[in-house]
């Protein structure tokens, strides 16, 4: 396999953009990534598009707006990990030697009903309740409740994840939420699924993000800025484990592969982006990614270890909680943030001297994608 570099990144601000089309959002992100790379659309030899619920060949239709170049375009759906999967496929397209320049784009329009819509019939809703149906927040509320029981924690450390990530988001002009929240606001906001209030949950939004990858010789010819290499690309689906004998989590197993490929460990990372759709997830991933032992995650956020300025900042752009989570582009927003940080261009949220960053995404149905980027 050949080495691959990220040569350009671009994204729209994540927000509720009800008036903007998918093509409009996607084009803004792709053109920004191409301009960042010093390339134009006909230079792209193959493209991968992460999109969920946007209809057949969403990527092909979106990119047709930029011109019909004949390049092969594939749309991938891996739930929340769709953008990360598109990035991995673009990386593999170049790593295997078939292409020198590949594009990954992700687009999402959750305000157009990409999320779960309520059935119109109230009796159907009552029936769902009787069957014990849970929205995603309910699943993570139960996980939070159990962690609090197992590790003697209150809701406060989970609320602190939200406070921290909103503070990071307030420093990111591309974040959906750019306002800090206080601990009291998190604790006293609207209860969604006990013990989680709405500020423990990521918002619904729209947006797009893109990255251009290239072979090292091609990247060197482009020449602008420091070379950012893809040091690892790991991707797994679930393996069976029974409730009585739980094995390592999918993130643990995927991280092992990623660290091995990169020839590095958690101690070598300078910043990390994870799937914090709900606050308990970030704390769980501190442990699964090897930054502390099981049961120590709450302490990390309480002690400020994972804040910008701390030893290992997590979700420096605000994470899903504040930067937002339009599903299709979210994994590529993580790549965008990591590249900006490794180039030293992150302004007020810059992690000093950052040379290696890890991006982790989980997708419903049971997938995990991890990339490690190194300067």
């Amino acid at each position, binding site marked *: 396999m050949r080495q691959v570099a990220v040569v350009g990144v671009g994204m729209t601000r994540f927000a509720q953009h009800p008036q903007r089309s998918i093509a409009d959002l996607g084009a803004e992100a792709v053109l920004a990534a191409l301009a960042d790379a010093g390339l134009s659309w006909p230079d792209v030899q193959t493209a991968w598009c992460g999109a969920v619920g946007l209809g057949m060949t969403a990527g092909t239709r979106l990119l047709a707006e930029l011109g019909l170049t004949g390049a092969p375009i594939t749309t991938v759906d891996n739930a929340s990990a769709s953008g990360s999967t598109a990035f991995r496929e673009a990386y593999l397209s170049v790593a295997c030697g078939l292409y020198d320049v590949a594009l990954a784009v992700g687009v999402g329009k959750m305000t157009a009903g990409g999320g779960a819509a309520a059935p119109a019939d109230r009796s159907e809703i009552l029936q769902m309740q009787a069957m014990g149906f849970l929205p995603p927040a309910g699943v993570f509320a139960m996980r939070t*409740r159990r962690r609090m029981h197992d590790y003697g924690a209150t809701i406060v450390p989970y609320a602190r994840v939200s406070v921290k990530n909103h503070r990071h988001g307030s420093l990111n002009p591309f974040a959906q939420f750019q306002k800090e929240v206080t601990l009291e606001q998190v604790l006293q906001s609207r*209860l969604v699924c006990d013990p989680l209030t709405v500020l423990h949950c990521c918002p619904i939004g729209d947006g797009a993000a893109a990255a251009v990858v290239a072979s090292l010789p091609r990247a060197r010819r482009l020449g602008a800025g420091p070379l950012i290499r893809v040091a690892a690309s790991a991707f797994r689906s679930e393996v069976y484990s029974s409730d009585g004998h739980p094995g390592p989590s999918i993130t643990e197993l995927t991280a092992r592969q990623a660290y091995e490929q990169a020839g590095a460990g958690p101690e070598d990372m300078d910043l990390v982006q994870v799937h914090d759709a709900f606050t308990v997830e970030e704390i769980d991933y501190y442990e699964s990614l090897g930054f502390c032992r099981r049961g120590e995650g709450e302490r990390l956020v309480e002690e400020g270890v994972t804040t910008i300025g701390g030893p290992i900042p997590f979700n420096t752009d605000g994470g899903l909680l504040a930067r937002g989570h339009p599903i299709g582009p979210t994994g590529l927003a993580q790549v965008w943030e990591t590249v900006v940080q490794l180039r030293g261009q992150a302004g007020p949220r810059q992690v000093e001297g950052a040379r290696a960053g890890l991006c982790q995404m989980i997708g419903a149905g049971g997938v995990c994608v991890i990339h490690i980027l190194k300067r």
Partner: protein
Amino acid sequence: VGPSGRLYTYTVVYELFAGLDSLGPYAVGQVEMEGGPRVQGLITGSEFDELEIDMPLELTLLVLGTGERGRPRVTYAFRPAQPKERAP
């Protein structure tokens, strides 16, 4: 799998869908069944603030409505374990 177990974890759902008028909060739990798997279902017959991890629960049936040929449609749920009835 026996008819009873212990509450492994739970939540009370206040908002099932964003922006939906509440049809009233409801409790859902995962129950570790005696000698068997962990099963998820609605919890009935308990005040929300009386729910507690490890509390004993037992299976009960809920009638959802009427199905084909007028037969009742039922599903399972959990309720706090009832004290055993004494033989007369």
